[in-house]
């Protein structure tokens, strides 16, 4: 987190806490993370415990969010679903960042041969649709939540590379970059202290939109057998399973769906808040 260090983490936090929607985002995101961590404590029932006598039960005092097609408690499943989805969402994006940011920066800043190599490899990766990539990775890596995160992360890498590269191309022409070079900064310093912080806004947007995409993408991977292993739920898996019962039990769609919306909302609002908190010109 060079960035936060560069601008003073305490200052950023203070500003974030004063940002109205940012706080809402922070609270939502924190709540999700908390639910993810504490799912076993919070869940009123075992998310895998079936009850074949009470399938597709409507929300009721005993099962607050109803029960699913196997009679499992939907509330508990949502809690555990958050756990899987948030994990995949956050980890995949982090992974993608770790790979894409350095490559994109280097390609955009140095251009020339490095750029050619990075960009062509990116093109190659992009040529494989997510599904093809996912099936391949599923085959190579085997099934686990972490592997799902890796597969999604890999598929997000080329996008992020191109976004970061575009920013680096633009920012490399700035005079303060020249100033830093003139002061004897190494490429890494220039990139991480000057170029990256100034492309943070574009990056934040990409990251915050990537999280819901990862959550939805995970459903597909789980379906292919790469993601969470049933009966462990994830929000995406719950949503795709509920599709069949849409007419009979709409609540099976509504609650996981709403939770995804909340996650999207939370991370995006947090992103907005961070953006403003990190922006020295921010007025609020």
């Amino acid at each position, binding site marked *: 987190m060079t960035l936060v260090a*560069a601008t003073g983490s305490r200052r950023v936090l203070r500003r974030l806490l004063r940002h109205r929607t940012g706080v809402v985002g922070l609270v939502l995101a924190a709540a999700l993370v908390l639910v993810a961590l504490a799912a076993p404590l919070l869940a009123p029932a075992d998310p895998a415990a079936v009850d074949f006598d009470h399938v597709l039960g409507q929300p009721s005092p005993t099962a607050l969010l109803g029960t699913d097609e196997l009679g499992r408690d939907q509330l508990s499943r949502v809690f555990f679903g958050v756990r899987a989805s948030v994990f995949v969402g956050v980890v995949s994006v982090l992974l993608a960042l770790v790979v894409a940011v350095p490559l994109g920066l280097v390609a955009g800043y140095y251009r020339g041969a490095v750029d050619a190599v990075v960009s062509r490899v990116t093109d190659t990766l992009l040529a494989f649709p997510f599904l093809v990539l996912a099936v391949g990775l599923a085959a190579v890596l085997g099934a686990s939540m972490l592997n799902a995160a890796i597969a999604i992360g890999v598929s997000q890498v080329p996008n992020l590379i191109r976004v970061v590269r575009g920013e680096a191309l633009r920012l490399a*022409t700035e*005079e*303060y970059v020249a100033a830093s*070079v*003139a*002061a*004897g900064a190494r490429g890494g310093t220039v990139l991480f202290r000057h170029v990256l912080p100034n492309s943070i806004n574009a990056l934040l947007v990409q990251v915050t939109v990537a999280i819901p995409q990862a959550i939805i993408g995970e459903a597909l991977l789980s379906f292919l057998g790469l993601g969470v292993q049933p009966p462990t739920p994830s929000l995406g898996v719950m949503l795709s399973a509920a599709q069949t019962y849409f007419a009979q039990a709409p609540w099976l769609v509504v609650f996981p769906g709403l939770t995804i919306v909340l996650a999207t909302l939370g991370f995006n609002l947090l992103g907005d808040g961070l953006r403003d908190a990190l922006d*020295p010109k921010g007025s609020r």
Partner: protein
Amino acid sequence: MTELLSFTDLRVRFHTEQGTTDAVRGATFGVAPGEILAVVGESGSGKSVTAMSALGLLPPTAEVTGDVALRGTSLLEMSARELRRVRGRKIAMIFQEPMTSLNPVFTIGWQLVEAIRLHTDTTAAAARERAVELLDLVGVPEPRRRVRQYPHQLSGGQRQRVMIAMALACEPEVLIADEPTTALDVTVQAEILALLRDLRERLGMAILLITHDMGVVADIADRVVVLYRGEVVEQAEVDRLFRAPAHDYTERLLAAVPRLRVRQAEPESTAEPVLHVEDLVMSYGGHRAVDGVSLHVGRGEVLALVGESGSGKSTVGRCVARLVEPTAGRIVLDGRDVTHLSARRLRPLRRGIGIVFQDPGSSLNPRLTIGDSIAEPLRLHRVARGRELAARVDALLDAVELGSATRRRFPHELSGGQRQRVSIARALALEPQLLIADEPTSALDVSVQDAVLRLFQDLQRRLNFSCLFISHDLAVVDLLARRVAVLHRGRIVEQGERADVLGDPQHPYTRRLLAAAPVPDPVRQRERREAAASGS
């Protein structure tokens, strides 16, 4: 006297992280039709902020009270629509920093045409013609080629003149010019001042001229307002002000004005050259910006590089710092050929080179605090860390007359002059062997400039560093430099000991340059001007 534009008890306060800053504290003054009012004052005294408040261009962090009125109509209470009709048409503004104030992605022709067509029903073609005309008017050479160029392809002075042309596009009633000649050499400056004078005469334009150059004040102003720490401390006719300054600060200000008086030659220096440039050529797409420049700077020596705006001074500086790779020629640093050295090999050498960029605004990372920007070179070369680092940063800030409170601020929260001083502090942080200073005092008022120059001399004596000093202020050159090189259209036309070049100029351009340097004395300046007018 009816005032065209009047400021009444104007107060501007900025709400920032570090609390509130009172930038302007109850300023009251006005400018009459056809009047040229100079606003002078210490760097950071609120000049630019005052000017910008008139057109409602302050950032949202600013809280403005009091009133600014155009012909008695309050500008602060105007609706966005009404204000838009005033902007550019009735009141035009030239911003202090031309580098960042031009849109980087449009050609300057486009930007001029826009300024013209926003308020008049000119056809696109006619507007284009007019744009060329305007560029010509402000003395930009080859205007037809220039209209197709982008801001980054112009020199600092050229950009500044584009800003001027843009402001004049609609012949406004009031022109607010914030340091309009900082990047211009004196010959061009003289032309611009003549142009302003002419506009005033022809159109009765009122001009509010913010400047720190007392020579310019003496040359053109009718009246002067002196701002000090956000307050108007003195208002007077120009002659009276120079003759009998009433306020303490004004007195100090005038006393600090450097005067060009060509001091005696110093003993010939025999120091070995630290920097040696041979036949340097830099061409941009066929256009030779620098065309066979050779020069050398000895140890402990200050070489002043003067010359017309756009003559290639900054380009020479950039080449020497190896920020661009020259098209041809050789650059030898401390006996080492660095012309084609790789970035990695160059890096250790960079420690010994400090650079002050011509445009302080864009050379500071907007996301780093001032303290971090200044500390960067120290961190990079692991010179200091932790508390020691903080102490050194504070000392540097202090040396350039900025309080240590500035440390936590961001570049956009500073005034132009303050940013320039940050840039100087950063360049000096490593106590370099060679300093490349590109117009380092252009945005400084004379009192601060005085302090900075003294610091320079001080450091130079102490550290015996060499300096490539790019400037258009001949008085400053006279004060600092041992030798002077005169650049004209990419070539060195004259080079030698300061006393020789300034005292006995050989090349016609040098002579013109010296003749054009304004004298900070309104009476004498008027005489010189009249003499020149009758002479030509």
